[in-house]
């Protein structure tokens, strides 16, 4: 019943951007000394003349990316979210978002899975931060198939894009017939008792949680939101109407992320109570992936338990 594991998103990142560059000479990669982790190394092997080591100097890296975009190149960033978004935020704001330059901020190691690096490297507020930035679009793919398609789409979109990637293998959700559509949420499952709305690598876990809930007699409608900005308002309203009981689930803080976006949207368009599952207002810590998911309530069984409890007390 549990979804099978797919390829690690970082492997897909390395392979797909490399492939894109085969056909598009404008594509370059800027690395912040983490190519061996992000799998930017795949790109370097194939296109050494278009791979630029920027050293451990990420503020400059994002500024260089802006300059390169201004002369017609399409830079992809190879580093962790902590250093792709948080460290160089002013460069992103002034040099990339404000002038709408064509930089792809592909941030690896988002959320809790950082290879046991702990709270310094776990970024669980990037969606909130980037969502508040004008001109920025945010895409958070669920699995290997969707990551590949999101990256291919990103090269065709003229403007800044933040792609939220995770380090490790995620459960395989979509087969090859899936087509990512920018700005569109993806209904994955129907059910009239509860509406679960999720994004990124949390979505496969939410699908497993929905299966668990079904065994307990709770039928869940599941909506996957790969494009967090711009948000698919009509799909969210429609999903909320299905059950009138909405729970958002994300590997991210409950403040201002997907849960915040859904609550804002529904309160304006179709007032519905929204429960938010995600990181509470705390920093993370070092631990195995499974232990982190358990502790912070993001594993399939913990999500199912929480939803069942919320439903029972409704």
């Amino acid at each position: 019943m549990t979804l099978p594991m797919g390829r690690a998103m970082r492997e897909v990142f390395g392979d797909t951007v490399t492939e894109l560059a085969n056909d598009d000479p404008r594509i370059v990669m800027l690395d912040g000394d983490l190519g061996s982790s992000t799998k930017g190394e795949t790109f370097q092997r194939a296109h050494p003349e278009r791979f630029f080591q920027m050293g451990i100097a990420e503020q400059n890296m994002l500024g260089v990316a802006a300059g390169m975009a201004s002369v017609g190149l399409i830079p992809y960033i190879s580093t962790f979210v902590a250093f792709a978004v948080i460290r160089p935020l002013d460069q992103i704001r002034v040099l990339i978002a404000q002038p709408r330059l064509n930089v792809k901020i592909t941030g690896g190691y988002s959320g809790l899975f950082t290879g046991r690096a702990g709270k310094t490297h776990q970024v669980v507020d990037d969606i909130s931060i980037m969502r508040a930035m004008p001109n920025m679009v945010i895409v958070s793919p669920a699995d290997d198939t969707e990551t590949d398609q999101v990256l291919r789409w990103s090269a065709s979109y003229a403007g800044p894009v933040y792609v939220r990637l995770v380090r490790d293998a995620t459960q395989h959700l979509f087969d090859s017939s899936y087509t990512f559509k920018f700005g569109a949420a993806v209904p994955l499952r129907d059910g009239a008792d509860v509406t679960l709305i999720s994004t990124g690598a949390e979505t496969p876990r939410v699908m497993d949680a929905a299966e668990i809930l079904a065994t307990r007699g709770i039928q869940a409608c599941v909506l996957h939101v790969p494009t967090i900005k711009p948000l698919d308002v009509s799909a969210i309203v429609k999903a909320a109407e299905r059950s009138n009981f909405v729970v958002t689930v994300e590997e991210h803080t409950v403040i201002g992320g997907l849960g915040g976006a859904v609550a804002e949207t529904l309160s304006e368009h179709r007032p519905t109570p929204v429960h938010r599952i995600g990181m509470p207002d705390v920093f993370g810590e070092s631990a195995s992936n499974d232990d982190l998911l358990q502790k912070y309530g993001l594993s399939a069984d913990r999500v199912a338990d929480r939803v069942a409890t919320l439903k029972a007390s409704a």
Partner: protein
Amino acid sequence: MVAPGESVGDDVARLEELARRIRVEIVRTVHKTGVGHLGGSLSETDILTALYFRELRVRPEEPDWIDRDRFVLSKGHASVGLYATLAMRGYFPVAELLTFDSLGSRLQGHPDMTRLPGLDMSTGSLGLGISAAVGIALGSRTLGRTNRTYALLGDGECQEGSVWEAAFVAARYGLDQLVAIVDHNRLQQYGWQGDAPEHRLPPEAPGELRAKWAAFGWRVIEIDGHSMAAILDALTQARTGDGRPIAIIATTVKGKGVSFAEGRYEWHVKVPNAGEYALAMTGLGETVDATEEAAR
């Protein structure tokens, strides 16, 4: 006189006259719009004049010309100086300067490349523009283009750590078609107090900028940033690359050309009143039109 839109080559006297007229437009713009960073716009004027009227391969009538040289005003707050220079060079009408920083204007408080054709980068937060210039230079080289890239930084701006990230990476890539010019006017907005409240210490100690840029692997040229001949000579030297990016450290005077503002930190961002405006204009060899003032 020189007509707007003209490149004047190596004629020092004509360039000096242009710089004088650009200073007049800077002072007029700040006075009449009531906003703008006067001190740093006046200290950079001679450098911008030399760049736009002699050095840069640009086409004001075709600002997006793909093979143009690029210029990044990393010290974006001194935008009035750049706007006055661009107007005199023919990018837009000189009269448009009076829209500076007002609603709907293409002349934003800090340079906005999405609004004004001719701007090669949006800047304003200090320490960022030099990184973009490194990207422009590295990207242009990657694309096989032969254009050169120029960035103008403030000496106060060189306190930003990201400047040195950019300096390190530029040297690592041997970007000898990149020229960073530091407007070393030796004052920042507020700075460290010296012997008295009105006395401010320079952003860096004497010789410190030379030592830093050299230590980061740049070829350093030091000049008097108000000597047109020296600026032209330095820019000529910078055309010949030796595998290192070039830093021109131009010693200047904040508020240059306006007697009461010269060397005074308070004039970093301050608007001349009517009396000061008249004094400044007289000092720059202009007369203030009394009817123009009365109509204000």
